[in-house]
């Protein structure tokens, strides 16, 4: 009922975009007395939700095992909510020309605003490690940080998406029994103010525009004009030696063209 198949991978693109904000965080272990860097690593980042068999097969390949390697970052999408505050008129359309196709353009209705919730987690072996990672993230969000996403490449549709930091929580399980390990976890919750797009279709290029103008009272002194506009060729497209109406008929959307204007007084 709703139409033919389409899949713009918009949510996936938002996930990737969110992840790439945090895939280049560096952590340095320094000598407290001299400040010399003893080791520097790129903090591992992964999208959290995974198929369980893949986790078992991929992360436990060696005969030898360890509890986990720290520090780590994970993120996942936690919600998809409609955002009525950013709603625009649903009958607006975008159009873009198609390369090497002067007879048709692509047409797409405006997207629907959706808020995508994300959670970013930081786990570290020490409080200082966790703080070092977290402090490299928080200052960029005031509380929003905007990135430009290439939403629909075929439509040349790019959108500035605001990534809003909603809150930061942390737990440090340092007390209780000696038999329980200490866990230091920071959890950052974000909202990406994104959009979901419908399908795009092709439509013929409009080659004739007609404007009916009426000046004056309808009953008294009324003057009516009909203006028509059609493309006018600027080059000899059919290579017959002259630039004339036959060339005008061959103009397409990708050509450099002028206009024929016709005025008819009614």
């Amino acid at each position, binding site marked *: 009922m709703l139409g033919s198949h389409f899949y713009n991978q918009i949510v996936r693109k938002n996930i990737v*975009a969110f992840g790439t904000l945090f*895939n280049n965080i560096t952590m340095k272990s320094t000598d407290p007395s001299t400040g010399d860097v*003893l080791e520097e690593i790129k903090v591992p980042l992964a999208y959290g939700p995974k198929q369980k068999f893949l986790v078992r097969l991929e*992360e436990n390949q060696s005969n*030898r095992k360890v509890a*986990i390697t720290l520090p780590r970052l994970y993120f996942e999408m936690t919600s998809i909510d409609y955002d009525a505050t950013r709603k625009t008129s649903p009958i607006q359309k975008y159009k873009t020309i198609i390369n090497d196709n002067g007879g048709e353009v692509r047409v797409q209705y405006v997207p629907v605003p959706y808020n995508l919730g994300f959670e970013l987690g930081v786990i570290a072996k020490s409080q200082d490690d966790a703080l070092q990672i977290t402090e490299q993230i928080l200052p960029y969000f005031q509380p929003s940080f905007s990135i430009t996403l290439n939403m629909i490449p075929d439509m040349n549709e790019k959108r500035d998406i605001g990534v809003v930091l909603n809150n930061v929580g942390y737990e440090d399980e340092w007390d209780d029994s000696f038999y329980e390990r200490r866990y230091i976890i920071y959890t950052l919750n974000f909202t990406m103010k994104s959009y979901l797009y419908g399908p795009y279709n092709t439509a013929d290029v409009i080659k004739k525009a007609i404007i009916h103008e009426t000046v004056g009272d309808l009953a008294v002194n009324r003057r009516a004009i009909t203006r028509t506009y059609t493309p006018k060729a600027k080059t000899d497209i059919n290579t017959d030696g002259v630039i004339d109406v036959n060339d005008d008929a061959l103009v397409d959307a990708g050509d450099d063209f002028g206009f024929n204007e016709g005025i008819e007084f009614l």
Partner: protein
Amino acid sequence: MPTSPYFPTYYQGHSGEQGLVQDLVDEQIKLFGSDVYYIPKTVLADSTLDEVRYTKYQEQFQIEMLLQNVTGFGDNAEFISKFGLRITDEILFRVSTRRWDEEVAANNPTLTIDSRPNEGDLLYFPITEDIYEIKFVGKEEPFYQFGKIQFYAITAELYEVGQDDFDTGVAEIDAVEQLFDNSFKLIMDPGGTGDFTVGEEIVGDEFLAKATSTLTSNSISAITITDGGAHYKVATPPSVTISAPDSLAGGARTLATSNDTGTFATSSGTGYTAGTYTTTTLTNGAGTGSGMTVQIVNVSNGGVIGSGGATMTNINIIDNGSGYTADLQGVGGAVGSIVRVNGGNNDLYLRVEAIYATAQATATATVSASGIVNGITITNNGDGYISAPTVTIDYSPKDNRAEVKAWDNATRSLEVINRTGTFTTAEVITGLTSGARWSPETFDTLNNSNSNYDQNRAIEDDADNIVDWSEGNPFGEFGNFTGSI
């Protein structure tokens, strides 16, 4: 009222009974236990937050322990957390207090508390090939049997890998770092020399200071700084090493025609042509000279070198040999080395006029407040140099270092762990043990080649066509300075 010394209570014990129980405990552990490596940790701690900033494991002690119990193996100890796979295998060992004192405490380990196993230290259990971190050491259970504690109960959980440095000297223990530590790969430019060895330290020369030396009369007369480097410290200036003289001790430095007053008085020979000649030592004074090779540059006077005394500018020393003594007969001194140049019709005799001293030049460096090496003072000019020696200034503290995980000469692929910074393609990386020298062509710090958890590189690649960073990425570009992104 004091207790009776004649009827010791269970908790007071008797030394004979205590020794017997301890013997039985030790025997049981030796019969049914396993040899476990105890690995103490050395920590660099933050005194404010009171937590470990960096850990080094540099010692190990092998001691038998009895596996009392395991928890988690084979059931739900492996699970998927938000942060990937977690394993919580737990293990309980018993170790004899007496054997602990003998095998560990007696060897002065680096422990916070010498008298017992320490929480936070590691155990390597060869059966599972895994490392366990001690969570708790029970030292009063069971409670003073016969008035003494016979063993400790160690509860340990599978080790969590962090920024730790393993250098225990036991390959299977140190391998945990090679297997699990964060690593990345560099592809080197063609044209490097040597092969890196696994485990060695490598260092780049991005901030290295450089200098050259000037030679005057076989000694260093000046050192010129050609690159002051960067990030050196005033309080701890770098050491300066000047290469050793390139002659052997006791090698001949200068020659003269023989003016021996005896058998070898004839100082010129005939029948020589331009070329290289070996020599034979004829007299040697107190020396043991041998091995000198000379070059006759040209001949004159019908094949006679000089007349009544050879023209010494026509003769070069090719190999200084060693063990010669200076012949000072002509100046009223001691008899020294006189050599015959082999190969002529009438022999050419040469006397060794001076001997190479082999003093190695030394120097010290000073560092400016901005961290640049701004002066080198020669503290010993040295002696015996034929060509200007190389001057090597120690690496800057900021120069990037790392440990080699793997090296493949065919693909010029170098994997490293424990890096202190990010290498650049402009620098030369040197293996401190192997001496191998290669320059990076490309590298990728986003791709942790030791882990299948990390998606940093995959996300970066996916985002290339999605995120428009035309106005710049404040989170940094991008783990590779060589433009692959």
